[in-house]
């Protein structure tokens, strides 16, 4: 059964990926799907910037602009940033804690396919009558008034992909609690693993409110409910609360892994252990906790009254403290170190000033009375792009360059990587810095055009030019990926030479079973400790033996496909007679697949000791 070192045809490779439950392959799936949606969201961003380049532009129509704007936000958050974060987690976390896989490999695959089908479903709206057009926040009064099926695609697509995310989060929680190698105590876990741990807890608590909101809206739009209709006793503000109780923690769900990625990179390329590790852990947990206490700062202008506004203002400011702790800890990790400016490291270095700007404008937004001016203006657009691009996207690009050799066995080209960085970095600041001023000068956000004579012309033109720089950077990155895949040289275990954590102790890419022998962890930065003592490998915690592995399965794919079909049917149940039957068939597919999953006794298989030894010999020579 072992698939080690076996040449396969294209069909077999596709079947392998459709059925895989291996966290490393699932990481690649997340990377490809997330990368695709990232390009799609980027294309939408370019359309937005072209439309806003000059006043009174008619590049696209007002209605279509709202669809593009909605899909840009929704795609980037749910379908690009989230899965790319999951790609990093899947690729790295199990190896970082010395495990052979996640706790529930089957669920891991299910999580991916749910996300994937949810994302595809959402994007089908482009071809089936129009995409959602009420913004990624989809505020209830506007989304209930939207005449097309766009919002229905949003509501159903996000429910499906949201289940996937929730499943993924639970899986990582259980994995990190239960699957750590001997000696890997909580306070010896790498920072990225800590970030994944806290993030997964946030997912666990943040996604249910979103699901509740989405179900309410689904009821209202498709099944005659009235949760959000004030005329019938509903209330639209409830949607705003539910959405932001999810939406604010979502920011930290994205940015905490980003912090984790940078923590790894700073330590590695400064050749120093992370400064203030325990306070970093503390800060991460605190940010996660406070992240749930501040949602209403998105609603300062809703009319909640001064008491609520004041409380949420102060709570929001408090988050700046643990975030500041992190910034200084990173700076002092580099202090006294031996800094090597590789591509991941320059992203990390550039992240500090970029993110600090996003952070301080966050505190400015927290001052409720002044936020009445910032709210829903381009100032806010500038702020959250500084946080999400300057924080999350920089981290994902850095992480992709950093772990690319671990995922694919080849290094991305450093020269092209730096070209991407500079184009992206310059473009980013060019695009978004000026937007702070546009907002302060009175430009509301989410406008499809602006009239001349209001002083918005120059700023918008600069912003559009910047966007083209970012697009150019992305094109170079794609070229880099292609060139590396075709021509790149194979690398060994520790291609950056300064790897500190367990993933750098195994071959690149890691073998199917990760560790021939589960390692014994003797401290923080377990691999670094071994290296400093002059050892080549890790200290094993068990004798070499047969390794138990889970069987691949097509069921996760089928379960997700069923929900996709069901959503499709129910979406059209008011328009066509086939709607309800198709919906029911879809549910039956899902439930049937779940039934088979329950009754089939799947014991997995073993990779025998001899096979492991042979594979290790080859891996070591690579």
């Amino acid at each position: 059964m072992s698939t080690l070192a076996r040449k396969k045809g294209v069909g077999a490779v596709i079947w392998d990926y459709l059925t895989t439950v291996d966290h490393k392959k699932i990481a690649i799936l997340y990377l490809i799907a997330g990368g695709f949606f990232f390009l799609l969201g980027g294309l939408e961003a370019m359309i937005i910037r072209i439309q806003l380049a000059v006043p009174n532009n008619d590049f696209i129509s007002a209605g279509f602009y709202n669809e593009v704007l909605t899909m840009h936000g929704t795609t980037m958050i749910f379908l690009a940033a989230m899965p790319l974060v999951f790609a990093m987690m899947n690729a790295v976390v199990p190896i970082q804690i010395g495990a052979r896989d996640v706790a529930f490999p089957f669920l891991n695959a299910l999580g991916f396919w749910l996300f994937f089908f949810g994302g595809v479903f959402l994007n089908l709206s482009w071809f089936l009558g129009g995409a959602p057009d009420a913004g990624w926040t989809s505020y209830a009064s506007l989304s209930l008034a939207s005449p097309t099926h766009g919002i229905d695609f949003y509501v159903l697509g996000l429910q499906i992909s949201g289940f996937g995310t929730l499943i993924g989060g639970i899986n990582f929680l259980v994995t990190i609690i239960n699957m750590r190698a001997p000696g890997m105590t909580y306070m010896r876990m790498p920072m990225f693993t800590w970030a994944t741990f806290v993030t997964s807890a946030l997912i666990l608590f943040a996604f249910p409110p979103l699901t509740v909101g989405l179900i309410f809206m689904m009821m209202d739009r498709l099944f005659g409910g009235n949760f959000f209709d004030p005329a019938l006793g509903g209330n639209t503000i409830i949607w705003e609360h539910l959405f932001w109780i999810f939406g604010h923690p979502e920011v930290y769900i994205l940015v905490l892994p980003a912090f984790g990625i940078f923590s790894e990179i700073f330590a590695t390329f400064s050749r120093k252990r992370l400064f203030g590790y325990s306070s970093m852990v503390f800060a991460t947990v605190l940010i996660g906790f406070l992240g749930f206490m501040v949602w209403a700062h998105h609603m300062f202008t809703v009319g909640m009254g001064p008491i609520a506004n004041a409380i949420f203002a102060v709570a929001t400011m408090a988050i700046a403290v643990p975030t500041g702790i992190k910034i200084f800890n990173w700076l002092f990790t580099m202090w006294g170190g031996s800094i090597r400016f590789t591509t991941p490291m320059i992203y990390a270095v550039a992240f500090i000033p970029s993110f600090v700007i996003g952070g301080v404008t966050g505190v400015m937004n927290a001052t409720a009375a002044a936020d009445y001016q910032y709210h829903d203006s381009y100032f806010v657009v500038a702020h959250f792009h500084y946080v999400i691009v300057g924080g999350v996207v920089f981290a994902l690009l850095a992480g992709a360059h950093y772990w690319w050799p671990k995922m694919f066995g080849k290094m991305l080209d450093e020269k092209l990587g730096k070209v991407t960085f500079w184009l992206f970095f310059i473009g980013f600041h060019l695009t978004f810095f000026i937007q702070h001023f546009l907002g302060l000068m009175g430009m509301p956000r989410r406008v499809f055009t602006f009239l001349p004579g209001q002083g918005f012309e120059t700023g918008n033109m600069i912003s559009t030019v910047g966007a083209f720089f970012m697009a150019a950077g992305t094109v170079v990155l794609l070229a880099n990926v292609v060139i590396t895949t075709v021509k790149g040289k194979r690398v060994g275990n520790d291609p950056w030479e300064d790897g500190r954590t367990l993933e750098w102790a195994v071959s690149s890419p890691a073998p199917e079973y990760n560790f021939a022998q589960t390692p014994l962890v003797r401290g923080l930065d377990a691999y670094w400790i071994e290296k400093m003592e002059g050892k080549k490998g890790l200290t094993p915690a068990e004798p070499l033996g047969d390794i138990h592995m889970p069987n691949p399965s097509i069921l996760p794919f089928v379960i997700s496909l069923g929900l996709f079909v069901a959503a499709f049917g129910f979406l059209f149940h008011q328009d066509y007679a086939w709607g309800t039957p198709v919906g029911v068939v879809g549910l039956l597919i899902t439930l049937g697949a779940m039934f088979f999953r329950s009754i089939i006794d799947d014991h997995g298989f073993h990779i025998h000791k001899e096979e492991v030894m042979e594979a290790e010999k080859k891996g070591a020579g690579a």
Partner: protein
Amino acid sequence: MKKWLRNWRLVSLVSAMALLLAGCGKPFLSTLQPAGEVADMQYKLMLLSTAIMVIVIAVVTIIFLYVVTRFRRRKGEENKIPKQVEGSHTLEIIWTVIPIILLIILAVPTVLYTFKLADVKPMNKKERDVVVVNVRANLYWWEFEYPDYGIITSQDLVVPTNERVYFNLKASDVKHSFWIPAVGGKMDTNTDNTNQFFLTFDDKRAEEAGRLFYGKCAELCGPSHALMDFKVKALPRAEFDQWVEKMKNAKPVAATDPVVKRGEEIFNKSCIGCHAVTPVDGRPEQARLAPNLADFADRSRIAGILEHNEENLKAWLKDPEKIKPGNKMTGTYPALSDEELEALTKYLMTLSVE
């Protein structure tokens, strides 16, 4: 100094200056040129928070630049293993306590102003002596009702200067948000409830801004969200009172010009179902489906966005969809011939209280 470096400095200096000068925006629109008590408070908070944040950025930048230049790996250091430092309690306490102090400095005025700006007691007294405006936001137009004077106008809000003007805010279809950037922050117009707040229009600065502030819808509300502008005429109290009197006493004038008369006929046939032409409109708000046109000829813009002239008015009447996509007027009246357009335009341009 190298030549390119000098040139680069010059260019960046000039562009920074240009940015600073242009960076403040227009006096009738920019939050950076506050024109009243509320905007002043918010501007002060902006300056305070910006100052604190610039300090933070400066400190981080100095450490940052020092670290990335001083500790880069140089030739011959390939095998150097730096000291593995665990952390420093002193430093950690410093960078925890100092931010907390900075935040307290910021939090105190924030809380204070938040409460100050929420003080709407004077408008809710039984015997009130303040100007109150009921703002009703509709898909792409604004209605301004003065309940104490019994008059209604739309698109152009008229307010007295140098006193607090109080607002009741609500929406009749989807959520919008009421924002006059130069005069004060926004407040949402919800579909569920009425919000209240106040603004003050400073007379001197209103004069400097041409006595016409720009107002915006700040909440995505549909295709023409970007075009849901309104204007604010800020007048000295005496002139405001005169305007109120004129509005109260406005009487329809019998048309003498045959073209205007023809226009009035068309209006009474096709338009009057939605548009009122008298400022005193006793119908409930559900019946007030479109902007009140009593003082239409006195307005500053056609449809809230176009220059106020006959040509634009004709263009609007001919095809409103082209000007404000998704508006509620398109298709509610029969197509107009050129002759009818001319007559209707002439008639609308006579609707004035001045």
